[in-house]
């Protein structure tokens, strides 16, 4: 049997998923009863729920997806102090390139990756190349291009 996919989430990310799941379940009940729940009357409605307002099948498939995610969620916790010099999920990595310029990424699971927030997925080529490296390591990201970074700093905040 194929191994089930694990979803790595920060505490904040997991809470968000749980909250979303509960909201969508309420929405489904209301839709089945033919009611417009209060959350949908507000002008400030969270845009995350807009897609499901009209489309019941999309709503149902999202609920099933969230159930699957919650079943397979794994909380990202900061590693013990002696291992905090190694890049792992949840780490914010400060990198220096060959011109001395600084770049920073936070490594997260696929569900929380957002380049606009500086968060990259551990499954992206850049994320993958960084995992497991220590401060001072030289990391080479190769595709057709070759980017050489040196890891300057690794931080784990309370996640």
């Amino acid at each position: 049997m194929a191994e089930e996919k694990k979803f790595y989430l920060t505490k904040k990310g997991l809470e968000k998923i749980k909250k979303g799941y509960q909201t969508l379940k309420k929405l489904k009940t209301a839709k089945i009863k033919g009611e417009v729940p209060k959350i949908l009357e507000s002008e400030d409605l969270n845009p995350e729920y807009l897609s499901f307002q009209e489309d019941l099948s999309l709503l149902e498939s999202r609920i099933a997806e969230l159930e699957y995610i919650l079943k397979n969620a794994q909380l990202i916790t900061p590693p013990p102090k002696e291992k905090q010099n190694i890049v792992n999920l949840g780490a914010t990595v400060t990198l220096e390139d060959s011109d001395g310029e600084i770049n920073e990424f936070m490594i997260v699971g696929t569900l929380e990756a957002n380049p606009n927030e500086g968060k990259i997925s551990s499954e992206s080529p850049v994320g993958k190349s960084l995992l497991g490296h220590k401060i001072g390591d030289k990391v080479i990201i190769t595709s057709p291009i070759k980017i050489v970074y040196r890891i300057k700093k690794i931080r784990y905040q309370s996640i």
Partner: protein
Amino acid sequence: MSIFFMKGLLNFLIEINKLKEIPRTGWVLMGVKNPETIADHTFRTAFLAWLLGQKKKLNLKRIIKSALSHDLCEVYAGDITPFFYYPQLPKKKKERKKILMKWARLSEKEKKKIGEKKFNKEKTALLRLIKFFNPKVKNEIFSLWYDYEKGILEEGKFVRQLNRVETLLQSINYFGSNIVKSGNNWWEWVEEIVEDPLLLDFLKVIQKKFYGKRIRIYRSEEKELEGILDFFLKIGKLKRLPRLYWLLRKVKNPETVAGHIFTLTMMAWILGRERKELDLEKLLKMALCHELSAIYTGDTTPYDEILSKTKKSKKEILKKLPRLSKKEKMEMFLKDYQEEKRAFEKITLTLKPSLKREIIQLWEEYRTKSTPEGYFLPQLNVLAILLQGLLYEKKDKDFFTFPLWEWAFEICDHPLTLGLLEEMKKKFY
């Protein structure tokens, strides 16, 4: 359909037409002459969404709409890149280019700050753009964009990655595989975000084709992805192909075939959703496909044959629709049909048989008007052309849209298309 809906729709279409004139910032900064527009980029992103989304078994209707809407906000927000906020971006061309050769290096704090600024600017712009619509349409467009920005659902997350893959392909088109010329930034940009296994394989196929890299993926998968890549490279030519109808009328920098397809697909989405009896996914795909043949036939117009035979002045001929007998029309149709069919066979040659059949079938339905979707789309097509003509006419009083009106009056018979036609009359005259 309410008069307010039509008014709102027309205003929206006029506004998004600007995306056919806004060049993408990255190319401008890199000094590319006459680069692709945001509409051109959206066209191929929507195609990537269809073909690769199908392989991923994603919701195709949703993913195509997501691709179509992902850059709509740029009508007012412009195409923002992190370099706009880069503290050391010099004014001198040479020095600036040096920085642009690699992707922006920023701290986490700067990334968050820039990301938030960009998000808020684009959100405000999008809300301004869709204010013309009723809440249902407004919610749909806004939620698709929000999903794309935040990567909540699979489709939004996938399109976010496709956006960068499409740009990477375009960078190879402009600069080739010579990293010294192109810089690292396009690959860096892609490799930060692409994480989907299918897209990672697709990137490997790109590396093999353009950089001679050895790759390790399943042979059958490799072959299929190579075929898809070949198809995307071919359709990229439509971004550079100006519409002949406007060139004949001496319009400077007219819309491209890809730009026209973008407008038509947007119309198909917004008007198609009002016709519940139609298959919207099919209509969207049909709109994306309808003029692919131009890659090989070039863009054609009903005047081509007449202009080559007549002694009358070109200006005289172009003043009205060609006057043809039923027999002549039939002959012209058959000739074009055969040429276009041959072109479609060539374009889809490298795709797997089921996809090839689907694309050719969609084009045939459109060309022969043999299904409800195939009957509706030509009406939208003439309205998309008429609207573009009216916008050119507004800029240049010597430009005349008379033949386009004639054409629209001949072809439109559905209350929705007639309603939009009426609204155009009110708006422009």
